[in-house]
């Protein structure tokens, strides 16, 4: 899922049998060589049984009057229906989300209850900026590998159509104090305080890093400049991503998408509405979105703000086989990395890729398909440039060469 927000961390999972292309993914094919066994001694095999998602819509479109847990509920119930797994089998539910709806702050629990899961099944919600739903998945892997659980549902949900906009701190204080104000005098005092216009200015949720006050788009644009990624290269890459996504939809490859019924919308929602292949000429007309007037990131080479949810079912290998389920993938390894939030905020993949390969004892040549999910075409290109560079490897990865 392409979210707004920030990447202090990035994770990468190696899936030797990849589940196929998803929207806005970068895939690089390498020549296939003999497969190694990655099973670890004394660690249980963790498998992916199935994954589903709602169509991803641009925020403010057809989903706009829903609540976020509605979308998550759909994926949870859809997952059970598709796999035929009984709700009694599910030991745990974990969800990732970035901007929380305050009414459903443990959205995993609210969604699974509405999806008719057992009320004795525990659930929790995690957040780690853009990587939140991956954090949910690796949390599930940990629970299974540690023998705590046999079957866990992990997922992610984001709903940018409605974000929590707060009253100002001053107004919140007045409101909280008002419940304590008993006398008319005190009440009038509070009323008087509420007369200032500053009190009435709402607080929008920051789309910026708290530590640097910089928005992600701004940081991405600077990253592109730092790695010399041109506007043209970004537009070309974005065009390629949109084309792949459109082709996959056309060919009916996106079997994970569940149709969604929005009340009072006549048609079922069956497709992502942000996949819009365009021409370079059209794209070149756009003005930069963040750094004006000489920046390189535009609305066309960046991903959109999204509403959507997903869910996947993870099990221990034995459990899946005992239930007669065929694993779609074996989940072998993962790493999380963090860098300087100012200048390397969006450079996670460049650090995580070599690290996870080393950890798993693999080389580039062992991998058939890499899949990265990032918000900006230029960001992917910057990361690839870094990975291509001996200089970068020496300076930042502690390696002798790339």
């Amino acid at each position, binding site marked *: 899922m392409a979210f707004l927000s920030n990447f202090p961390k990035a994770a990468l999972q190696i899936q030797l049998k990849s589940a196929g292309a998803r929207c806005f993914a970068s895939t690089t094919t390498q020549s296939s060589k003999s497969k190694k066994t990655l099973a670890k001694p004394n660690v249980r095999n963790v498998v992916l049984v199935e994954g589903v998602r709602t169509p991803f819509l641009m925020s403010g479109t057809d989903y706009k009057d829903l609540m976020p847990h509605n979308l998550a509920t759909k994926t949870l119930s859809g997952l059970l229906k598709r796999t035929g797994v009984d709700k009694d089998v599910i030991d745990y539910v974990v969800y990732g989300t970035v901007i929380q709806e305050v009414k459903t702050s443990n959205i995993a629990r609210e969604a699974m209850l509405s999806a008719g899961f057992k009320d004795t099944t525990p659930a929790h919600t995690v957040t780690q900026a853009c990587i939140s739903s991956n954090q949910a998945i690796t949390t599930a892997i940990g629970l299974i590998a540690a023998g705590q659980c046999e079957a866990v549902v992990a997922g992610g949900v984001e709903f940018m159509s409605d974000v929590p906009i707060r009253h100002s701190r001053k107004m919140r204080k007045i409101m909280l104090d008002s419940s304590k104000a008993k006398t008319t005098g005190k009440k009038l005092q509070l009323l008087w305080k509420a007369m200032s216009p500053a009190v009435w200015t709402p607080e929008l949720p920051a789309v910026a890093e708290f530590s640097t006050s910089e928005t992600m788009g701004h940081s991405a644009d600077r990253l592109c*400049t*730092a790695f010399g990624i041109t506007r043209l290269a970004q537009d070309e890459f974005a065009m390629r991503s949109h084309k792949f996504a459109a082709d996959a939809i056309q060919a009916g490859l996106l079997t994970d998408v569940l149709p969604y019924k929005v009340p009072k919308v006549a048609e079922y929602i069956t497709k992502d509405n942000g996949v819009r292949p365009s021409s370079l000429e059209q794209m070149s007309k756009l003005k930069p979105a963040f750094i004006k007037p000489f920046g390189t990131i535009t609305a066309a080479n960046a991903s959109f703000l999204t509403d959507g949810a997903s869910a996947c079912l993870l099990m221990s290998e034995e459990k899946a086989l005992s239930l007669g389920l065929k694993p779609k993938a074996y989940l072998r390894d993962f790493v999380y990395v963090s860098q300087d939030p100012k200048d390397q905020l969006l450079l996670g993949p460049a650090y995580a890729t070599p690290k996870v390969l080393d950890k798993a004892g693999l080389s580039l040549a062992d991998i058939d398909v890499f899949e990265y999910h990032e918000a900006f075409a230029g960001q992917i290109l910057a990361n690839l440039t870094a990975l291509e560079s001996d200089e970068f490897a020496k300076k930042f990865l502690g390696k002798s060469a790339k």
Partner: protein
Amino acid sequence: MAGRFVGVFRQISTVNRSLARVSGDHGLKNFFSTTARMDFGKYLTYTVKDGIAVAKFDEKDAKVNTLNRGTMAEFQEVYKEITNNPNVKGMVVISGKADCFIAGADINMISDCKNVQEATALSRNGQDMFNNLENMKIPVVAAINGSCLGGGLETALACHYRIAVNSKKTSMGVPEVMLGLLPGAGGTQRLLKLLPFQTAMPMMLTGKAYNAKSGKKIGLVDHVVEPIGVGIKSANENTMEELEREAILTAKGLADGTIKKPVRSKKGLNKYIDMFASSRLGNIFWEKGVKDAVMKQTKGKYPAPLRIIEVAKTGAQQGPRAGYEAEAKAFGELAMTPESKALVGLFNGQTALKKNKFGKPEREVKTLGMLGAGLMGAGIAQVSIDKGIDVILKDVTTQGLSRGEDQIIKGLDTKVQRKKITSFEKDQVLTHLEPTINYEHFSKCDIIVEAVFEDLKLKHKVVREVEQKIPEHCIFASNTSALPITSIAEASIRPDKFIGMHYFSPVDKMQLLEIITTDKTSQDTAASAVSVGLKQGKVVIVVKDGPGFYTTRILAPTLSEAVRALQEGVSPSKLDSLTRGFGWPVGVATLADEVGIDVAAHVAEDLGKAFGERFGGGNINVLRDMVTAGFLGRKSGKGVYLYQSKSKKRPENTEAKAILDRYKLDPKPGNTDEDVQYRLASRFINEAVMCLQEGILANPMEGDIGAVFGLGFPPFLGGPFRYIDLHGAKQLVDRMKKYHDWYGVAFEPCQLLLDHAKDPSKKFHTR
């Protein structure tokens, strides 16, 4: 990165010219398509990229670019080159150094001028050069990153468009006034034209500098470039390349009309103020608006701000021709004033003291143990954590500790409010602080600074206690204003690690740190202490141990003389106005209240014992009686003045007056106001010279810096030694002779001063 240029500038024609060799090799222009540049010039290089000439200031083997004769000559050549090249459609002026555009004019070039004519000619040269630049037919874009000060900003002002990098290092201003000069290369004229009167005048009169963002707000900058981080290349290289790229695109855009120069019509009230100020009717703005404020601040002691007003006004009311003429003339005259020479001397001294003369210490100080969380202790802790030094702040009680931590938080909050740091950075800074009431983690300390009560026995106890808790390499520094370090060190088991670090209150504002070495202090200990001081952002002088060291010792006779004047019936407010009239920033009576009457009494007593009658003057019992009566100065609400918590008014303390009356002396016949001023100043100066004579001071420069930055000796006099160089020792010795007849030994000039009086060719400073 080369890819970017291939993509953006398909055809890059690079013209490399040797700018140092000014020969007629015009036929040798290279029009090869290449991104490589050969840096021929010593001060700047010149290339043409895609029809845009890029003049890059990059002085070889120098950390910063300055405007000197060499730069100016090379710039003239570039100018000729560009005007003769019909293919050039625009021009970019940029620097090859990431943290410096142009730091200003080369100060030595100005100091080397022998007379007004030479300095005036220098100004005219600058004016001509920048007028040529401004009058170019093609658009000229200044691309600024780092310091852009004085002549640097004047260069940028002559350009048609300014873009600047939003980094902490970018600083744009005209600080010439602080050197007793004015922006002499068109600055006084262009600033007033570009910016509203209300912004331009304070900028010139105070030297206030702007960063990229605030510069954009006031209209100094047209476009802000965000700094770029590290990629394959370093952050600095990336930022400079992006700045150049955007500058070239801007120049191209201005040349082909796709970018419009923003029309800066002054709006609202500013429009009318400027209109009036430039008319004959607008004198009120010049007189009441700025001149009165300057007179109030400077008492007319500084000629530069007054000339700036005069020159700016001439330009505004009589047009540029008269303005430029006045500017060059005033610049030449100001450069020859003793005030300017004094201020330049201080600037040079400050610059010289940024270097640690003891070299690099063997180990870097990472953790500082601060004993005492009072005003001083908390202040020292604040300036240390601010620079990334871990501080363990210890006090005896949690109440004292909590008060100290509050002081630090308040100090940092002020920085957040002024946008010097973000609130996130404040949190990071505060993490370096570990407040405690025990010695638990003192084994981590590399240096201890004690600021406990000024009592030798207590200090000995603390030294013995703490030395049990700290590692062997740890330095022990005592922050005392008067107790001899050698005496405190008697309690130490490691006297080679013992040193004095005399901070001035309030620590976060006062720039000076006086470091005191004893005979036993090792070189490495001194090196460490100086490096800590420099890290804290202090101007550090190093003196030998002795009663009162340097600063306290020269202040003591001055205060003693002040008490005598009070006894003679000069009222405290009169004394304040006399001393301020001499140029001291704080009146001496107020100073006594600020320092604390008890402290003053203490010092007077101790130093009186050490130096005998020579330190006499006022009756010591005046101070003693005041202390007994509880008149301790501002801290107790009563001193020479009365302090009310809410009111800013400070009436004289009549009870203190009563004490003074008890010790009333008759003033000497013929004693004038000027005599009072010189009685104070001559004892101050004489004692300073004596400190040099006795080897307390290593050199006159440190003496000047210590007197000005620690005690507020009038900066326009440049310090006691510069004062003698500029104004002569003889006149001072003559005055002292008269006072000697009146008061005796206190006014006996020291031998070194007498030597200088005898031979006027003798100078303390070589330049």
